């Protein structure tokens, strides 16, 4: 059905990579032109090297064709992926899937206008046709400048030894089966466990009309575990996640069995939990994945497309105070092993670390080339796309509230009646009004300065500008989640990291049922 249908709500963050069809990977071997020998095995030896077809000369010709009628910028983006998906359900390896999507697209932009065309076949003539179609958006504007692309040398932000994606299938099956057994061992009340494993190796080649030519290879893995506990008529599901742009050594630091048990324990904690409260109250949000809050509340509203259209509530507020003086927000494409990390973005700009908010003042927007061009600024290296079938949009990478100075335990003191969000689900935002929401998977009551009993999930809602003024404390326990963020916008899903330390808000509206 429509691959990219209009969605009325602009964005959502999704647990895990279940529906993704997309999953990127980061600068493992970076710009290395030499592939590790086993990488070829992972690609099964069936993909031709992208650069065999798209050498400097052919890329030049395709870009010249793209700019034949004028335009401010053109790029060629080629991609091939090798994806493995393994699902365990009902104690059985249900299915094993290989995916091999491969293709290339040509984009032309002229001021605010974009032309885009792609081909599922990476062949010179097909891409010349795509360039011709993409150029149609420009109505004979300027003259054609010569294009001369040169390989760009970029340093990967971190290296990944022995990527998980390249492990043998048997090793992957073994991890999944051990996770299943571990989750079930927590209690006989755990009646159902589902493990979804996804990994990917992604090769990209980007040529740009300003002379860039970059080749990259990235790896990503995500594993989700959901465990359901049943007690009489009460039925609760707990979730946990593993993954990132990581190598085999990751499993030494993050034991898959221990993670699987966390899902089962969460389900057991939720069994018999009381309903969540309803109404406005002090709220403390747990570190790590709690960063969904900053992703929704400020992150999306700072993306260059809605900024330049003037439809974001943060349009035109550069340099102004938009949050608590304690607040510092960073978008960091270089975060080690981050789910949203990369060496080079999907339009040939190097990934970078950008301070978005400092001391409560708005320091920078999140920009791709086109939004930067129209705002008369420089791209922040945030041009990302779901696949070769889409054009780039300004997107977040790993976005977090930076470390504060408070002792996390002290953030509960003085709260007579409040809510602690221990684990969150997905969220969404309307960037025009700034009204946002995110689901709480596991919450606790705060009573007289103490975290007390667990309560059922509920949605938390607020308005970006109001909520970010109400920060009362920021812990010194920053964590950035690299296991599960999948961000959707305009029908394009990209993996992201989110993070924060423990953060306390004077008030947020909790959407429970207990008044």
């Amino acid at each position, binding site marked *: *059905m*429509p*691959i*990219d*249908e*209009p969605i009325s709500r602009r964005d*959502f963050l999704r647990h895990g990579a279940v529906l993704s069809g997309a999953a990127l990977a980061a600068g493992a071997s970076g710009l290395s032109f030499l592939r590790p020998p086993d990488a070829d095995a992972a690609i*099964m*030896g*069936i993909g031709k090297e992208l650069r065999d077809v798209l050498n400097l000369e052919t890329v030049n010709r395709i870009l010249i064709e793209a700019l034949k009628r004028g335009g401010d910028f053109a790029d060629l983006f080629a991609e091939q992926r090798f994806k493995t998906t393994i699902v365990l359900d009902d104690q059985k*390896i*249900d*299915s*094993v*899937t*290989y*995916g*091999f999507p*491969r293709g290339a697209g040509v984009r032309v932009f002229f001021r*605010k*206008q*974009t*032309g885009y*065309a*792609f081909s*599922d076949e990476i062949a010179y003539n097909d891409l010349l046709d795509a360039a011709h*179609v993409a150029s*149609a*958006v420009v109505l004979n504007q300027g003259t054609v400048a010569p294009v001369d692309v040169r390989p760009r040398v970029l340093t990967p932000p971190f290296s990944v030894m022995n990527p998980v994606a390249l492990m043998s299938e048997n090793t992957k099956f073994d991890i999944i089966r051990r996770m299943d057994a571990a989750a079930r061992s927590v209690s006989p009340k755990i*009646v*159902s466990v*589902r493990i979804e494993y996804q990994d990917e190796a992604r090769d990209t080649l980007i040529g740009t009309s300003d002379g860039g030519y970059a080749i990259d290879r990235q790896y990503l893995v995500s594993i989700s575990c*959901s465990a359901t506990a049943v007690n009489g008529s009460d*039925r*609760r*599901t707990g979730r946990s996640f593993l993954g990132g742009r990581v190598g085999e050594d990751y499993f030494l630091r993050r034991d898959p069995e221990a993670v699987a048990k966390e899902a089962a324990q969460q389900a057991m904690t939720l069994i018999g939990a009381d309903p*969540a409260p*309803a*109404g*406005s109250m002090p709220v403390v949000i747990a570190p790590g994945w709690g960063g969904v809050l900053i992703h929704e509340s400020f992150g999306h509203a700072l993306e260059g497309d809605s900024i330049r*259209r003037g*439809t974001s*509530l943060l349009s035109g507020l550069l340099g102004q105070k938009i949050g608590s003086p304690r607040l510092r927000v960073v978008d960091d494409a270089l975060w080690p092993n981050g789910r949203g990390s990369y060496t080079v973005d999907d339009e040939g700009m190097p990934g970078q670390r950008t301070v978005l908010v400092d001391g409560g003042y708005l320091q920078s927007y999140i920009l791709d080339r086109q939004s930067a061009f129209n705002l008369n600024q420089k791209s922040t290296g945030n041009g990302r796309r779901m696949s070769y079938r889409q054009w780039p949009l300004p997107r977040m990478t790993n976005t977090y509230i930076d470390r504060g100075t408070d002792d996390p335990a002290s953030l509960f003191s003085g709260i007579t009646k409040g809510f602690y969000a221990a684990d969150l689900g997905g969220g*969404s935002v309307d960037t*025009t*009004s700034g*009204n946002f*929401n*995110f*689901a709480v998977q596991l919450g606790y009551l705060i009573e007289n300065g103490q975290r007390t009993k667990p309560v059922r*999930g*509920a*949605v938390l*809602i607020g*308005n970006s500008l109001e909520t970010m003024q109400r920060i009362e404390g920021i812990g010194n326990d920053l964590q950035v989640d690299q296991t599960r963020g999948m961000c959707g916008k305009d029908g394009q899903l990209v993996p992201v990291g989110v993070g924060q330390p423990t953060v306390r808000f004077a008030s947020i*509206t*909790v*959407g429970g*049922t207990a*008044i």
Partner: protein
Amino acid sequence: MPISRPEEVLNQVRTMAERSGAAEAEVYFDFVRFVEVRYREGEVELLQQSAITGLGLRVLRDQKMGFVYTTNLNRTVLDELVVRTVALASQATPRDENRLPDQAFPPQTNLEIEDPYADRITPQDLIALAKALEDNALLVNKVKTTQTARAGYVVGETHFSNTFIPYLTYRNTQFWLYCAAVAMEGGQKRVGSFTDKKRNFQDLTTPDRVGRKAGERAVARLGAKPVPSARVPVIFEAEAAGGFLGGLFGAFSGLNVLEQRSFLAGKKGQAIGSPLLTIVDDAILRRGLGSRPFDGEGSQTRRNVVVDRGVLTRYLHTAATARRDGVNPTGSAWRGYDSLPAVGASNFYIENGSSKPSSMIEQVPNGLFVTGTAGFGFDLAAGDYSQQVEGNWIEKGKLGRPVEGITVAGKISDMLTGIDAVGRDLDFRSQFCSPSIRFKELTVGGG
């Protein structure tokens, strides 16, 4: 790359798989043409013309399953993938229910899901439609700009073959108009959107009306504020009710029920809602957005009543989950070339009731009228609901001030039982539709 003879490609790949050791093989091939114009502030912002091809191969060997998909239909690549997939299958766990549907039913006919106008409409036509959307949105007082105005269509072609069913195919079309308008007043900005989507171009709401509706919705949000927490009657206006219903869909999935991940597990044959509530998943609705002649596994599609006057009558299944549950298939498998068949919605809707939507409001002395919901508020295993909503407060039977920044929550089983009015304003603009519904009492969380 359009394939001139999809049937041949399908047969070749399937035969290759069978020769390589697959006891059963299934090939699914999609060819999708997608065109959309995005228009804003008097010019075309994006012109997208895409043609997508992809092939998925599922093989079974000793009741173990493997699956591979590719966008690369090069013969050498396909040969290699077939061999790999058959080898891959041997690593899965055998399951008794792993068998492909082996009976070729005649596909459903007369669905009217393809409009030949898709072959004639031009990008210029789409630009004119998108321009009309924006122009009309801007005619509404206080509407200052748009986020986007979009007009587009998609033509899909599906080709299917498995070891027992030689060849099935169908084409379908969808056309849509979408506008998101921005109203401004006193430093406040609010967005309102309206979308219509239809199988046949001539069934679409006019762009004038879609644009104006979007504008009016944006203006209606200006000045919205939270209200204090309360337990009150809540009406979900038809579109919001359709969204609510969409969130419930997963609870009817046979797999979720079998795996205890649905609050509806074990409730078949029992009353789970008000007698006013009938829910249908109809895959053969004439011109329905979710209608199709056969499902993702080649099974015959049908109209499935899942809740009949409050009583849960059936769950929805793929071939495998139906076998596991020991029931007849429901033809509910959905998939693309790049995914395995899974239970999905066709035209999933609440049947019209008898209430006039205006009377439903008049009968409420003090309550909430919900026009929009946002976020992920469904815990289907537990049966809990909590979402961000916006709308209007109802005072003495009349729609009053706009509200936002509030939540609505409840236990889903109590909510369904507590439905005390169902409107007669069902309108099919999406795969998930409902008339307006009124819940006797829900918790509103506010400021």
